[in-house]
């Protein structure tokens, strides 16, 4: 059986499982919306101040809310023995990691990207900057899902792996925050954001080519 069919089966199963648990599905999204709308409420709601802070707020909230759903990426499967079955499915753990990460991104990253206009309006980001914001968030959340896959695979055997997972993933996500917020900031002020977007793109390519191997090696150790 081809790896492509295995991938479509895997992603299909993850989506189906998530839609059976709408609370878990909506949690990161609601967190993202609440955190970002708290800033205009808590700060001086002056448009100029909000506009200055908007990229940082948007990106910090996006990173933290993606992190919320990371721990469960392999945990459930490891606890109920499904991970062993997946490891013995004849496809190799790399394919399994790619499928699970793709599903994670669709359910967390892609959902954030779609919800970001709501937040952008609340923070006073002008419509002209939406294109750059979409592009930077897409690349950033995708990279974060790949980095997160490594962290989740490393901590899957631990009882309270969540804190360690944040400690592993967040420092690695710093470049995403800097260049993601940078790109959005430039777009808001009307200057060219291409440089920052290229950098995010290269980070995304870098992680998605190497992370599947790193994460599958970590899972293999966990299974032993």
């Amino acid at each position, binding site marked *: 059986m081809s790896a492509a069919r295995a991938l479509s*089966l*895997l992603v299909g199963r993850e989506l189906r499982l998530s839609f059976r648990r709408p609370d878990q599905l909506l949690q990161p999204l609601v967190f993202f919306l609440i955190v970002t709308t708290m800033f205009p409420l808590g700060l001086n709601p002056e448009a100029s101040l909000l506009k200055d802070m908007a990229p940082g707020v948007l990106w910090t909230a996006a990173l933290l809310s993606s992190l919320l759903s990371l721990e469960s990426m392999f945990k459930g499967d490891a606890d109920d023995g499904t991970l062993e*079955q997946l490891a*013995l*499915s004849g496809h190799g753990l790399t394919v399994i990691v790619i499928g699970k990460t793709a599903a994670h991104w669709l359910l967390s990253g892609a959902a954030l990207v779609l919800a970001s206009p709501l937040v952008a309006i609340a923070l006073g980001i002008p419509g002209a900057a939406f294109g750059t914001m979409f592009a930077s968030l897409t690349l950033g959340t995708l990279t974060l899902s790949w980095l997160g896959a490594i962290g989740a695979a490393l901590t899957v055997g631990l009882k309270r792996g969540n804190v360690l997972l944040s400690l592993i993933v967040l420092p690695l996500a710093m470049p995403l925050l800097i260049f993601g917020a940078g790109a959005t900031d430039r777009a808001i002020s009307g200057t060219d954001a291409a440089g920052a977007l290229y950098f995010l793109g290269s980070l995304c390519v870098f992680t998605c080519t190497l992370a599947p191997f790193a994460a599958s090696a970590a899972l293999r150790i966990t299974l032993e």
Partner: protein
Amino acid sequence: MNTAADGLGVEGVHVWRGERHVLKAVSLHIRPHEVLHISGKNGSGKTTLLRVVCGLLRPEQGRVTWLGRSISDVRSDYQQALAYASHEPALKGDLTALENLRFMVGLKRRTSAAELSACLQRTGVERCADLPVRVLSAGQRRRVAMARVLGMRAPLWLLDEPFTNLDAGGSETFAALIAEHVSAGGMAVVVAHHELELPTAARRLELPG
């Protein structure tokens, strides 16, 4: 001559877990039409041995062979040829029995809903096909897991305590399924701490505690 050229062989396997020497020079072989019953006290390393046989756990010494070749060389072929039922049923509570099967069996080979329903029927849980697994009893989950093994149509069955939580009828059904599988040319390694009552002869490997 290699005794396991047409089946599964384990040669001089040693496994340490931390300071504990769990498996000491364990060797076994199994060929078509055979059942191997691995028994031993709690903690004697039965499950560890089965995980070594699966390839989930790499032994410190010794090797596992499939059709005469080391399983690390033929990993993909070997995994296609085996059906492993771990101690946990490995089913997703939020999916129905049929969905669980469609996914896990689907990863091994193309299959149809009718065929999977037939597998559920053979293990006696066809009525549970469209129920989420979380509402099933432990014994029913065990039967769904066995239906998954049937659905994979693999020549080598590796079953870890398959009779746990089963009623008398269930144990008989499973024993008959195992017997039918080996009489059709299959192989089965069954880990069980108790006596096996199979309609077919089983070789026994007792692990020293």
